[in-house]
């Protein structure tokens, strides 16, 4: 390994590459690519048809040009759309049959898959490039009627549920990247929580991009039936590479009457080097539908990686009295760009939404909050509260807030607060003059700034998130 890579790995400890032989059909995108992906996954005909419809629609679409950042052109013919590690046993029946190299990789990422070392209280679906390599705790969950498996398995074993809900929140016509995803999606997780069940474990998916020049197009679908509850976590990392890689995911959540879904993300894709070379383009569509009355969906995200993050986890508040929440910390350093926020669409009566967004920007990074609060004429008594705070570290970075508010019902109450502050030498000196070292001081300031978001994360995640932000900021403050 070259010293340069070693040096970079000190800064990003997930930046290693797993040397494993792969099943990787040629680059390029056409109907044959899609047929091939579908065949690899042994999908039924209806799934292929849906993919092809999406693809034909996508061909008519233009790449969106409205963000306030620029990125190099993406050559969609120069990407691998499918890469799967070759395993001795092609479809391992249990986790003990999963290829050792893959188990080792996830061990190194802190996601032990083996029976003895598994994380307690968390069930994990581990996705490596285009396929899920294994899902833990499935047996335990099945006893409660909970389905937690890879999307590929769900298409085969639970076609009725997939047919009913796939594309019901994010249709294949939704936007350029969502359509692309609908055509070529590889793997992701499927969760189904039956009526009246409170899922006792945190469900989680760990996404790993390993293969070079490969796009990752994950697709996740979570359905919470009446009176059910689930908390879901998502983590992601990728090796260090000098070229950009595309990650275009779609996540759909459906909450029925009185159901609650908590969705948390700690996103730590490789973000490029100090000069801004390489890193992941993280162009993601995440949307939840509070379909039932009194349902609740909350998105909590810590966005600390990717060269460009471009996503707006949203909630459609259709059921009366439903509640949507969005808590976000987006940290950008070096030359990273984040354009993230949420959309809260109020349709039902007395629907409520809360938006808390914290952007931290340092070095030459750009960090934008972009959010829409839309109150439809039917949404009597709707309420929204938004708070968007930005923190700047140094003088070369920038922060923007773009709130869009559309109110079509005069009984609605919409509040928006925004602030921009600087982490400055005085603050650091104040804390250090009390005996706290550099790391402790940064940690306190960041913790304080992000407190309202971190407290929404499951405990182990919030500790990890704080460490991650500290590590990223250490080089920028001092």
């Amino acid at each position, binding site marked *: 390994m070259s010293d340069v890579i070693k040096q970079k790995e000190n800064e990003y400890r997930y930046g290693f590459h797993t040397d494993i032989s792969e099943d990787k059909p040629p680059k390029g995108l056409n109907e044959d690519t899609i047929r091939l992906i579908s065949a690899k996954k042994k999908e039924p005909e209806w799934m292929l048809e849906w993919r092809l419809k999406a693809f034909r629609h996508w061909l008519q679409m233009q790449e969106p040009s409205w963000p306030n950042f620029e990125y190099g052109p993406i050559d969609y013919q120069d990407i691998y759309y499918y890469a799967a590690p070759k395993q001795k046993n092609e479809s391992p029946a249990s986790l003990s049959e999963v290829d050792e190299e893959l188990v080792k990789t996830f061990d190194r990422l802190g996601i032990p898959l083996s029976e003895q070392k598994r994380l307690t209280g968390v069930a994990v679906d581990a996705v490596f490039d285009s396929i899920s390599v294994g899902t833990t705790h499935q047996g335990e969950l099945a006893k409660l009627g909970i389905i937690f498996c890879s999307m590929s398995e769900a298409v085969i074993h639970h076609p009725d549920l997939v047919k009913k809900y796939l594309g019901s929140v994010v249709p294949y016509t939704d936007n350029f990247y969502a359509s692309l995803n609908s055509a070529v999606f590889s793997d992701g997780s499927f969760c189904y929580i039956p009526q009246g069940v409170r899922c006792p474990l945190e469900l989680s998916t760990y996404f790993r991009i390993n293969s070079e020049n490969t796009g990752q197009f994950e697709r996740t679908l979570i359905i919470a039936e009446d009176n059910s509850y689930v908390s879901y976590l998502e983590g992601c990392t990728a090796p260090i590479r000098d070229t950009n890689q595309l990650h275009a995911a779609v996540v759909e959540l459906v909450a029925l009457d009185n159901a609650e879904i908590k969705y948390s993300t700690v996103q730590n894709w490789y973000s490029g080097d100090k000069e801004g070379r390489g890193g992941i383009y993280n162009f993601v569509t995440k949307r939840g539908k509070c379909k039932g009355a009194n349902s609740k969906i909350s998105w909590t995200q810590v966005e600390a990686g990717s060269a460009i993050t471009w996503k707006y986890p949203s909630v459609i508040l259709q059921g009366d009295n439903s509640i949507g929440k969005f808590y976000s910390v987006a940290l950008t350093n070096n030359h990273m760009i984040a354009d993230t926020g949420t959309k809260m669409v109020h349709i039902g009566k007395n629907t409520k939404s809360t938006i808390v967004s914290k952007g931290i920007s340092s070095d030459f990074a750009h960090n934008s909050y972009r959010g829409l609060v839309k109150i439809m004429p039917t949404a009597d008594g709707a309420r929204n509260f938004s708070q968007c705070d930005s923190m700047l570290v140094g003088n070369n970075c920038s922060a923007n807030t773009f709130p869009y508010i559309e109110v079509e019902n005069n009984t609605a109450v919409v509040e928006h607060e925004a602030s921009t*502050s600087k982490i400055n*030498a*005085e*603050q650091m*000196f*104040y*804390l*250090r*003059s*009390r*005996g*706290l*070292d*550099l790391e*402790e*001081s940064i940690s*306190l*300031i960041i*913790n*304080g*700034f*992000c*407190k*309202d978001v971190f407290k929404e994360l499951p405990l182990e995640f919030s500790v990890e998130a704080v460490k991650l932000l500290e590590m990223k900021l250490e080089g920028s403050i001092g």
Partner: protein
Amino acid sequence: MLKIKDLHAGIEGKEILKGINLNINAGEVHAIMGPNGSGKSTLSKVIAGHPQYEVTGGSIEYEVNFKKLNLLGMEPDLRAREGVFLAFQYPVEIPGVSSSVFLRAAFNAICRHQGAEEMDPIDFDKYLREKMKLLEMDENFIDRPVNVDFSGGEKKRNEIVQMAVLNPRLAVLDETDSGLDIDSMKIVAEGVNKLRRKDNAVLLITHYQRLLQFIQPDFVHILYDGKIVKSEGKELALEVESRGYDWLIK
């Protein structure tokens, strides 16, 4: 305890301290007075180790627990852990961080360094409340973010609460009296007096002699244009009060 020798320091290339000499022994209270711009605050920040100030000459020797330390070679947090404390003229706000979390982290960092046992949150809560009572601070400040939405007087009093909690050997109070009404000043002075011991020392930096009515200094130094131009007993403060600074700086 503290020996400052021929100290030269400045900011952004401009020399502000032009050869300061000052000796402070354990158990003493020294006051530094001087007109605006004479370098009083610069001196306090250089002692605490503010990174924006550049030391261009001289030395500061700090003796604590039978160790002689070269203060200028130490990071600000290390100085604090060796018992140096600065009460800020303009205390800084730390949004989202409660006083109890902040002060326990600082207290335990100092304990760790000095080989003492760290305090758990329950014991620390009790300890902190005692110190707040000493300064007549409302107990709800314990959970409020540090200095956020505090009045000017509350911020200054909070500095002395921190001093009481961290129990320094050398406390530098930078214009702690400015912005305080007479009642608050009495409370602050009483707090500082209660913290005086044989093994610690206080350096008071002030513009007026008002504070010195309540905290009796052993020595008063007049700082002018980056140099100490006169050092005497506490009566010098009164003389400055009646005659101003002009006669000292001709």
